[in-house]
């Protein structure tokens, strides 16, 4: 393991790579603060840049830096103006914003920065230790198990993303999978579902789809409802008194430790991701806190900032485990990273650590570096960072739209792609109006070709669907997927039946 770390250090500690981490963190922090651009959109914007770099390690280091920067940037805007730019920092605003309003914005940002740093660093250590073990298990997997595992991943994502509406999430997954079959597949060399349109020959562009699913609907929402973006006044309260007292440090240290570990393992699960880790971290810490501290939660408790911040950063790191070792993205953001990796000719999976250990190690080292750079850069910059939020809405929204268009255009140089983007963007907004979760659609779209490839290989080897019952692990995984899908609706139904029963009895 030490040898591996040295390889990683060698790769990561070049001048270019360190500049990439610093640049990535800065870009991520600044754009992450803007409402409407979460890590997913920012990474999507940065992919053409990363692909131009060419060297996969450097590109991945840049994207990892952007990812961390974006998550931290999101917490800055949720603390200062209660406008979380990222879903995973919504929980941070519960206590961060009240604290900032009581004149302790500096302290809130400092707690957030330190907790993020600790969460990310502990997560990176756990990644270095556990990922090889997980990968050696993964080597036992054949194409049929990969197929089953992806089905499990997709079901888990649908089960989590749906929050009580699993069928909508599953429908979106299927729509994403169907969209992935448009164009010429790798397996058959014949165009499918292109309706004779030449532009569809190579399928839909995934950056276009990512922009249309996330950045565009959020921008449209910002236009529709001006109250959504509370930017423009430029007065974000006094940002002084960055220090935390010794008692505060003593009270949040165990919280950070617990939530970093819990967050990491939640991040490893496909479909859970940083958002769930941060909410769960907040809920757990509130429940186990002493009675008098419990009342403080929601009114500016330091623990209420430390818990979600350390959990979401550790979960970000955790989500790299399935991505790098199995090639399965745990969340929308890592799904976009997977797309970037494939574009860079890297196929993530168990062979990655054997064939190209320098890439894997460089990513882990870049995580330490990224976290350190974030801490060093952001603490002194905090007062200045807040100024970006003062950009008036009239300029902010056209720029968000423009960057969305650029993201889709730069890679392809094809104006038709922009029309597809606007069309899908309108569809995605309609879907959001109707409460359809959009992440499963994108994840289905990205996993679609891999799922079909493994399904086809298994079918060919076993001359039919026999692999489902002839390989016990495949069967077990598929049953697990079925349980994941059925369980939430079953529990919901039971809870409703019980509630109705009580109402009848009264």
């Amino acid at each position: 393991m030490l040898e591996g770390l040295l390889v990683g250090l060698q790769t990561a500690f070049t001048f270019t790579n360190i500049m990439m981490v610093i640049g990535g963190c800065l870009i991520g922090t600044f754009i992450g603060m803007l409402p409407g651009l979460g890590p997913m959109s920012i990474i999507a914007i940065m992919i053409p840049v990363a692909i131009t770099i060419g060297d996969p390690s450097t590109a991945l280091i840049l994207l990892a830096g952007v990812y961390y920067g974006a998550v931290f940037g999101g917490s800055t805007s949720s603390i200062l103006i209660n406008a979380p730019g990222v879903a995973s920092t919504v929980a941070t605003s519960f206590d961060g914003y009240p604290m900032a309003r009581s004149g302790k914005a500096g302290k809130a940002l400092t707690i957030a920065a330190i907790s993020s740093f600790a969460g990310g660093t502990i997560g990176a250590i756990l990644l270095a230790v556990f990922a090889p073990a997980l990968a050696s298990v993964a080597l036992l997997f054949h194409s049929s198990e990969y197929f089953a595992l992806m089905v499990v991943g997709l079901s888990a994502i649908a089960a989590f993303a749906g929050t009580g509406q699993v069928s909508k999430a599953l429908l979106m997954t299927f729509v994403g999978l169907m969209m992935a079959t448009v164009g010429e597949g790798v397996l058959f060399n014949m165009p499918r579902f292109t309706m004779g349109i030449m532009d569809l020959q190579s399928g839909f562009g995934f950056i276009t789809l990512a922009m249309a699913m996330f950045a565009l609907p959020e921008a449209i929402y910002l236009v529709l409802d001006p109250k959504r973006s509370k930017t423009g006044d430029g007065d974000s309260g006094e940002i002084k008194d960055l220090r935390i007292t010794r008692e505060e440090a003593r009270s949040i240290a165990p919280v950070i430790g617990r939530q970093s570990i819990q967050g990491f393992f939640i991040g490893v699960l496909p479909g859970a991701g940083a958002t769930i880790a941060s909410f769960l971290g907040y809920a757990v810490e509130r429940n186990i806190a002493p009675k008098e501290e419990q009342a403080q939660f929601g009114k500016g408790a330091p623990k209420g900032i430390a818990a979600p911040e350390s959990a979401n950063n550790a979960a970000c790191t955790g989500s790299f485990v399935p991505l790098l070792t199995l090639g399965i993205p745990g969340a929308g953001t890592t799904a976009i990273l997977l797309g970037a990796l494939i574009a860079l000719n890297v196929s993530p999976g168990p062979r990655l650590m054997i064939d190209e250990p320098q890439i894997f190690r460089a990513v882990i080292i870049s995580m330490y570096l990224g976290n350190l750079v974030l801490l060093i850069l952001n603490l002194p910059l905090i007062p200045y960072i807040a100024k970006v939020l003062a950009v008036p809405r009239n300029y902010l929204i056209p720029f968000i739209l423009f960057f969305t268009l650029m993201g889709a255009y730069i890679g392809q140089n094809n104006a038709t792609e922009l029309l597809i983007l606007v069309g899908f963007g309108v569809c995605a907004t309609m879907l959001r109006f109707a409460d359809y979760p959009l992440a499963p659609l994108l994840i289905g779209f990205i996993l679609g070709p891999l799922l079909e490839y493994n399904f086809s290989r298994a079918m060919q080897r076993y001359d039919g669907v026999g692999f489902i019952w002839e390989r016990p692990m495949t069967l077990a995984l598929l049953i697990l997927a079925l349980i994941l899908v059925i369980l939430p609706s079953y529990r919901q139904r039971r809870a409703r039946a019980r509630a109705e029963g009580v109402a009848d009895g009264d």
Partner: protein
Amino acid sequence: MAIDRWIAFVILSLCIVYGYSAYFTMDDLLPPIMQRRPIWPSTFPKVLVAGGILFSLIILLGLEKGPEKKDAADINLSRIGDYNYGQAVLLLGLMVAYALLLRPLGFIASTFLFLTVGSFILGERRYITMAIVSAIAAGFVWYLVDSVLGIFLRPLPMFMTGG
């Protein structure tokens, strides 16, 4: 009927078209040697369409009860009149115009127009600031993408570069 069920209906219709093509028309062109393989190009789509139809029917028929909508920050469609939907539609139109004009007008001019008209639609009336901000942004992004990153973007209108 609620909007989510209308959407389920639209998706169901699309699934039927997709399924018809997968089940009945796609395999016509398949060479005989390919037909001996256990897997055809249409196999996976056939599986997918079954799932798509199943879940769109579940939503359409209201078999799974969703939770009550409780997110106050979300857009409420029944009060659509309270929102700036005019601005949203205009901005979407502007994006389409940008897509159509990007080649004939060149990157710099169309981006400048996009950013200026975009902030105008949102209610900005300080024309000089608007023009300066848009010009700097268009020039800077072009320089960054074309010169620094080396991705070609046609900067000038078509008539100035000879098509």
